[in-house]
């Protein structure tokens, strides 16, 4: 062992080195985000609270089938609608419920949705959906899905059906998302 090695084994230089690292961090910029006052900005593709549009929905049940945990409940019936003077049968939603308390926010329903623009999408940037009572407050019927009763939307995000329709996920926030195939 050299002299310096011997010296280093007695005098704890390396402990001083460690103290230097933590000492330097004392003056570095802090990483804390003061949450309720400062809200972190979700990225454009962020999968947050559901957006749902009843008029776009064609009641095809694709989202309910794609859901891995079966939390989307859909019921519909046929109605005669007059379009251009012709009578046509059209599916009308009776019920479109999402049991958000069990949702994994995997986004498979959004991927399965065949309409363009999408009838259900998660790229709303809204994540403050916590509630004190999970069974009532976190069960979203189609009316609540469009008014977001109980969800605090992220600043700048408009709940579906309030004012104008939010940006289409296909043309807006999620632009550049590659089409499968």
């Amino acid at each position, binding site marked *: 062992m050299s002299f310096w090695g011997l010296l280093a084994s007695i005098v704890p230089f390396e*402990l001083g080195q*460690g*103290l230097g*690292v*933590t*000492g330097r*961090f*004392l003056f*570095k*910029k*802090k*990483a*804390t985000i*003061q949450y309720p006052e400062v809200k972190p900005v979700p990225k454009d593709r962020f999968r947050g609270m559901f957006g749902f549009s009843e008029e776009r929905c064609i009641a095809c049940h694709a989202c309910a089938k794609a859901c891995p945990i079966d939390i989307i409940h859909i019921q519909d019936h046929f109605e005669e609608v007059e379009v251009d003077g012709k009578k046509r049968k059209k599916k009308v939603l009776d019920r479109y419920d999402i049991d958000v308390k069990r949702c994994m926010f995997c986004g498979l329903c959004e991927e399965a949705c065949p309409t363009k623009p999408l009838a259900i999408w998660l790229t709303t940037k809204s994540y403050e959906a916590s509630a004190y009572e999970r069974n009532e407050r976190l069960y979203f019927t189609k009316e609540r899905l469009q008014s977001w009763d109980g969800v605090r939307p992220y600043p700048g995000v408009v709940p579906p059906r309030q004012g104008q329709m939010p940006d289409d996920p296909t043309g807006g926030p999620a632009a550049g998302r590659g089409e499968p195939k």
Partner: protein
Amino acid sequence: MTNPWVAFLLVPLVKIVVILLAVILLAAYMSFFERKILAYMQIRIGPNRVGPRGWLQPIADAIKLLVKEDIVPARAEKLVYFLGPVLVVAPALVVFSVIPFGPAFKLFGYEVAPYLTDVNIGILFILGVSSIGVYGVILGGWASNNKFSMMGGLRSAAQLVSYEVPMGLSVVTVLLMANSLSLVKIVEAQKQAGVWFFIPGIVAFFIYFVCGVAETNRNPFDLPEAESELVAGFHTEYSGMKFAFYFLAEYANMVVISSIATVLFLGGWLPPFPNWLAALWASPALAWIPPIAWFVLKMAVFLFVYIWFRGTFPRYRFDQLMDLGWKVFIPVSLVNLVAVGAGVLLIGGK
């Protein structure tokens, strides 16, 4: 000294109240500073919600602990369980009675010393009283009837006993140099010698401080309460005010160790560098600073190093801790004691 009643009763009473309040407040704010400084080292902000920039956090913590439910485990040994925190906190506070925070000064015509009393065996008193604290730890750990608490208590006992020895030995080197057991006299000896004792006693100073860290169960020697091993060590089962007592005692002990280190090695309330920068010392630029401020400043440096250690180092293992105490510190401090003694004899000492 006009009225003996004032001298014998009122002044000590006022002093006791002031010192107690100061110490308790200091310990509480110590926890605040620790959280803040640790947070800053860990790129966080730390407590900042109660009061402006979090300054009322310790008060809020104290109130919370006061009104918290005091849980006693069903199978605990009730009396001893109660005694544990008392035994820990009482010696920690008693020790402050002999620590000189500054020189005597005149106030309204009375000679007032900013310490409760100057015992001529001050340092012995401190060593003796502060070791009572270990009973509180081990009894509290045993009485909780919890295996983790028990192990924490035993670890703490072993640790305190083994680190008391090198600590005492390093204190003895100072006694050799100062020729007195009184803390006030030790500071005055440093003034006379013109050099603080940490320069001739650098090894003793280092050993004293490291042992002090070990005595107060602080990182990297915080094994009795190593939360990743023993949950919370001896105070696992304590809550509410009893936990607050342990907490208070830990921080009070840190203040004690720091202030003794200040007195013994850093010249107590003396302004810096009496001989090298005598001109500066005598100059009016520094003269307006009260001596007690120097004392607090030096103490704060120690306390900061405590926190710095906690933010940086991993924890020793129990057997390694014992190894360090018995196989390194005790032999080194013995050799150092002999060397310092020889030095004192050679230079002539007193």
